[in-house]
């Protein structure tokens, strides 16, 4: 994986340099963007609801026991927007969208479609990679906003209905508002933006690297998803450190 890091950086810099062509390829970006939304919005909601719920469930009783009922909202709010929303959603998107990108580009590679593009003097980076990277870089932060809101909702619902917590909806939200700042949310969105670039570049790179028929495509998909998740988790630590 790490010997490819250099190639990935190169692909990333080429993608960035092709950004002036963004307007020309806007249709492809839109298509990718809506595909990402379509494929993952429902999952994002379900996942986030239960993630928010489970943090509430785990921390709520402990805090209430120690007379810190007023901290439940803040704790759920912060962990959702600074860590769990961005990281969990990025992992979800790596599995759902990164895999699809690697598979699609990989099969184009194997079945010579990319060669055909090159003979037509169409740059595969402009045609395939850039629209996908841009689409996921825009879509993922938006999905994270969604995820954070739904997660807060899930946390609040559990806090209000679980007899061991019973922090009302209202006091949960008041407390959340007190503790979570706009900066915290922005912090999470920034992380997810970086993770989105990782997903786009790693998956497209893996797709372009594919060799050797259908089995090669399968291998590329697995590698793309695993590499994305590993990189996301490692980067998460350093980004958190940096943004502390």
């Amino acid at each position, binding site marked *: 994986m790490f010997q490819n890091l250099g190639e990935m950086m190169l692909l990333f810099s080429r993608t960035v340099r092709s950004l002036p062509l963004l307007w*020309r390829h806007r249709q492809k970006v839109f298509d990718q963007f809506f595909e990402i939304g379509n494929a993952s919005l429902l999952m994002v909601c379900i996942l986030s609801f239960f993630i928010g719920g489970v943090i509430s469930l785990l921390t709520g009783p402990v805090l209430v026991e120690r007379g810190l009922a007023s901290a439940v909202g803040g704790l759920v709010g912060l962990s959702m927007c600074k860590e769990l929303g961005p990281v969990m959603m990025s992992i979800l998107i790596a599995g759902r969208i990164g895999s699809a990108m690697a598979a*699609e580009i990989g*099969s*184009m590679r194997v*079945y*010579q*479609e990319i*060669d*055909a*593009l*090159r*003979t*037509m*003097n*169409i740059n595969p980076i402009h*045609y395939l990679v850039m629209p996908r990277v841009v689409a996921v870089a825009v879509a993922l932060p938006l999905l994270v906003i969604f995820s954070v809101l739904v997660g807060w909702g899930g946390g609040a619902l559990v806090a209000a209905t679980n007899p061991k917590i019973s922090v009302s909806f209202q006091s949960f939200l008041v407390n959340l508002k007190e503790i979570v700042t706009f900066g915290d949310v922005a912090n999470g969105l920034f992380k997810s933006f970086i993770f989105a670039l990782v997903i786009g570049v790693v998956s497209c790179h893996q797709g372009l690297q594919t060799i050797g028929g259908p089995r090669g495509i399968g291998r590329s998909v697995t590698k793309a998803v695993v590499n994305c998740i590993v990189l996301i988790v490692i980067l998460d630590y350093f980004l958190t450190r940096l943004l502390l």
Partner: protein
Amino acid sequence: MNEPTPDSNHSGVSVKVCGLRKSFNGQEVLKGVDLEIPSGEIFLIMGPSGSGKSVLLRHIIGLEEPTEGEILINGKSIQSPEVMEEYRLAMVFQSGALLNSLTVAENVGLYLSEHRLKPPREIARIVAEKLELVGLKGQEERLPNELSGGMKKRVAIARALVIEPQLILYDEPTSELDPLSAVVIAEEIVHLKKRIHVTSIVVSHDRELAFGVAHRIAFIHEGQILAVGTPDQVRQNPNPVIQHFLNANFKFD
């Protein structure tokens, strides 16, 4: 994309292959190929399966990097980036290599639409015209995976014709076609050459195509050129491999 000058617009390019060698994982597939193909010629490459014909074509259009030697298009190395900008080249792949996510019409018009060479309505007209030419009138909205092998091949040919190329490479253009479609494609190869003076390199086992349309034929065997010459010269070449290949026929006795 640079506007080609009117002069270069309607003339083919010359191709020179110098000492081309290619190894894949230590196995040598091309063992020193030298060819010179003047502008406007229909040059046919024939040889047994696995002899390196497709690999040779992929080198000529710059998809593979030679292990040794080089390919010159009008005297310029195909590896230099400006060659692809300067000349219009096209290749019909053995498998067709259509973009599976695009319709037939989008595939055929891809070159024009991606390079913004024509307005959409004009592109639609050209696409319909080329599809009719290859006998696929009215198939615009179908997807590649709904087509048969021969239909894919014909779409690929239409896609190459749209480019109005100065060099066109065909990898077995008639191999999956019925005899009637094969004749249409053979005629179009000749017609295209007459109309825009394109240089054509055709890989084919099809002996009728070879002796019907080619100006010159090269015979390749195990990565080496055994003979180059006019159809008659190659037919009379005494090399037993060539004679065996040309005279292979089913015999029931």
